[in-house]
C-alpha cells in the first residue's frame, strides 16, 4: 500500500465495494474516514464538491463498480518505476 493518509478509506471502500457496485453502479462515491458522504455522476464533480468541505488528502473518491480493473494501470515503459 502506498504511503498515504487514505489507506483506511481505501480499505473501507474495498469492504463496501460489492454493495456499492450493486446499489450505485457506475457512480462515484465520496468517502471520509469510515463514512460515505455522497454519490456523484463523475469523478470531477465529486472532487469539486469534496474540496468545498474537506481538505484534499482527507477524502477518497472511487467508482462504484466490481473488480479492480477501474483502478488498475499497466505501464509498458521503462521510463517510470513504482518501487
Amino acid at each position, binding site marked *: *500500500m*502506498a504511503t*498515504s493518509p*487514505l489507506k483506511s478509506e*481505501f480499505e473501507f471502500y474495498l469492504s463496501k465495494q460489492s454493495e456499492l457496485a450493486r446499489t450505485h453502479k457506475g457512480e462515484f462515491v465520496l468517502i471520509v474516514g469510515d463514512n460515505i458522504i455522497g454519490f456523484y455522476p463523475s*469523478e*470531477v464533480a465529486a*472532487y*469539486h464538491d*469534496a474540496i468545498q468541505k474537506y*481538505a*484534499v*488528502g482527507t*477524502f*477518497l*473518491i*472511487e467508482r462504484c463498480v466490481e473488480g*479492480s480493473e477501474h*483502478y*488498475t*494501470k*499497466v*505501464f*509498458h*515503459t*521503462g*521510463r*517510470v*518505476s*513504482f*518501487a
Partner: protein
Amino acid sequence: MRAFKPIKNIPDYHAFTIRANGTLSAIVTEIGVSLPQPTNIVAGGIAPSEMTLALWDTGAECSVINEATAKKLGLQPFTFAKVFGVHGAGDKLKNVYLVDLFLPNRIAVQGVRVVEGTITHGAFEILIGMDIMTLGDVSLTHVGGQTVFSFRMPSIQAIDYLKAGYGGRMAGKPI
C-alpha cells in the same frame, strides 16, 4: 485503392506541432501543471502554477507525475491506482492526484488523473500517457530526416496510409 476524402465542416480544434532539426529519440514538450480548477480554464485564461517537461509515452496507460514533483506542488492524493510496471515484480498501490494540464499552445486538459511514480532516465517530470493521447489525433513523421510531431484535440479524422491522398503512391498491394 480507396481515396482519402478530406472531411467537410471540420470542427474547431486546438493543436500544437514541434519540428526538430533531425530525428528525435523521444518526444518531450513543455507542460504546465495546476491544481484542478472548478471553472473552464480554456475560457478563463488561468495560468499553470508550474511549468516543466513531459515525455509523450505510448507505453503508459495513463499519465504519471514524478513523486518529487507532486511533493513540490503540494499535491494530495484522492485515490489509488494498482500499477503494473516493467521495473520490479508484482503490483503496487500508488497515489493518484487530480490536476489540470496545459499542453503546448495552451491546450488545457482539465481533471486529469496522474499516478505517482519515479521517472527515470530523463529531465522530464511527467509522462503523457494514452489517456491524453486518445483525446485527440497524434502524428509523427520524419520527412527528410526531420521529426515532426503534431497533436490536436479533439480527434477529428483517422490517418490511414493505405488510402491515397497523403502524397506519393503505395508500392505493392495492401495486405
